[in-house]
């Protein structure tokens, strides 16, 4: 399969930033395993110190801040813009909000949201009557 480029989706974050920089929606993959919900978000240019994950009530917010680089060089051509990342999700209460893990590698954020005990599938034994 040939990979196609897509234009980064720009968003207006809920609160304005104190500095002027475009903000983009990171592309995400969200999948569910037996024990957890996993969010993978593409945030190229963001390192560990630039990630901010915020959880308030059921709203999970991901922010990624790219390290600003001096652009004093002569631009030959430009096909993409750099900026911060922002996206938020509403979590169902099936998530154990105290057990959320985050890691970032090669510009991809991985959030592991452990499922709450009550949401896990349970085998129910059928007793002979």
């Amino acid at each position, binding site marked *: 399969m040939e*990979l196609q480029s897509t234009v980064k989706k720009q968003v207006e974050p809920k609160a304005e930033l104190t500095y002027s920089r475009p903000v983009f929606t990171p592309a995400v*993959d969200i*999948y569910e395993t037996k024990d957890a919900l996993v969010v993978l978000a593409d945030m190229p240019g963001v*390192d560990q110190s630039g990630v901010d994950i915020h959880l308030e009530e059921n709203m999970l917010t991901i922010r990624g801040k790219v390290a600003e680089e001096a652009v004093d060089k*002569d631009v*030959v051509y430009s096909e993409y813009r750099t900026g911060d990342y922002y996206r938020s999700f509403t979590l169902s209460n099936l998530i154990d909000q105290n057990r959320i893990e985050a890691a970032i590698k*090669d510009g*991809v954020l991985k959030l592991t949201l452990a499922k709450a005990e009550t949401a896990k599938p349970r085998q129910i034994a059928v007793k002979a009557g």
Partner: protein
Amino acid sequence: MAIIRWRYPSEMPAIGELSRLQEEMNTLFDRFFGKGSAVSAAGVYPPINMTQDGDHIYLKAELPGMAPGDIDVTIEDDNLILKGNRKTDVAEPDVSYHRRERGAGSFSRTIALPVRVVADKAAAETRNGVLKLVLPKAEEVKPKKIEIKLS
């Protein structure tokens, strides 16, 4: 001639169409003048940004999730070739996807360099999913300052 009922302009559906058109034109202009992201029409992956100074050409591409070993960079004459395969599949068994937005697949892109470069001295690194190339310009294409002598 068909008779069309006169309507107050604000009720006309065409207004919505017009504003949409205007929106599109604005985006087009913004892109042209560098405000928007100017992704090449062909949609080739990855999009790149190229800058230069007197001695070097700098090239950047966003390749999230790709380790240095996954990207193949070749310089052939005045062309730079970026190749790789981005995989987004996960190792865990029995997963069910809720969303799949991250693109996966192979890519190969040839970029014509604006000037001749010294391929042997080219440097490449990836950091946080961003590939950065520093290509030194060939001696003959470097800008030269000409001293003006006082006669």
